[in-house]
């Protein structure tokens, strides 16, 4: 593991995920969220739980970076973007389950799914562009299709 590049990739991923989340979910989707105000904390209460939001983003960025390092040791924006997209599909599935049990609007569901797809695909690409494993760890094998 190339820890310096890993750390740089993690910081960049965290910065992007946090900024994108603020713009997409906090600003762009603010109106859609306000259609179901009972689901959200008040501004003051949100301020009291802000540390959970920051820590949650750190955890997401760290483990997405770990996943990319394990999944694509040679790095590369394209391969890690594909991994980010697959991870986003997991979150999109979770969003659909949430939609079935919480009184969200269809607009919110669509916004969350599109946001996840953009956010994790780009975050994966950023990590892949910045992270490269040490050359000794690299290997290239091709799996025969079954």
């Amino acid at each position, binding site marked *: 593991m190339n820890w310096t590049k890993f750390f740089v990739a993690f910081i960049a991923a965290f910065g992007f995920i946090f900024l994108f989340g603020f713009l997409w979910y906090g600003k762009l989707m603010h109106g859609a969220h306000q259609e179901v105000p009972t*689901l959200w904390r008040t501004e003051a209460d949100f301020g009291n739980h802000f540390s959970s*939001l920051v820590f949650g983003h750190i*955890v*997401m960025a760290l483990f997405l970076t770990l996943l990319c390092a394990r999944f694509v040791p040679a790095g590369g924006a394209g391969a890690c973007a594909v*991994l980010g997209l697959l*991870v986003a599909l997991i979150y999109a599935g*979770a969003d659909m389950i949430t939609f*079935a049990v919480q009184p969200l609007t269809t607009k919110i569901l669509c916004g969350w799914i599109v946001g996840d797809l953009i956010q994790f695909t780009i975050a994966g690409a950023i990590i892949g562009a910045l992270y490269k494993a040490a050359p000794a760890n690299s290997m290239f094998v091709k799996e*025969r299709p079954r």
Partner: protein
Amino acid sequence: MKRFIFAFVAAYIFIFLWGWLLNGVVLKDIYAQTPNLWRPQSEMMSLFHWIIIGQGLVVFSFVMIYASGFAGGGVIAGIQLGVLLEIAAIGMRMGFYAVQPFPGKLILYGSVSGIIEMIIVGAIVGAIYKPGPVKAVS
């Protein structure tokens, strides 16, 4: 492809049963503490197909990631993948906790059960899915 489908179906059945047992039975009383955050039972049932599709998407993506980058490592690699994905999901859950007034213990129990769930899913997928013969590329 056949093993991909077997792994998908086995993991899907497990996730479906686990989700029902955990959310429908074990955590029922905790959910009842915040009724304003949830749809009424009848409304949930009318949207049940979203749960089926959502769980299917989660399992499909999991098996895809495993087959693309972790296959060959067997059960251990499947468990590793499950743990990595679930800890990232705990991060997402903490983000939701910051903006929605969930009880703290719902997040805690959900996260602990999520780790167990994904360890088992990883083990199932790792045990069933096997990569084809490896061809070296010169």
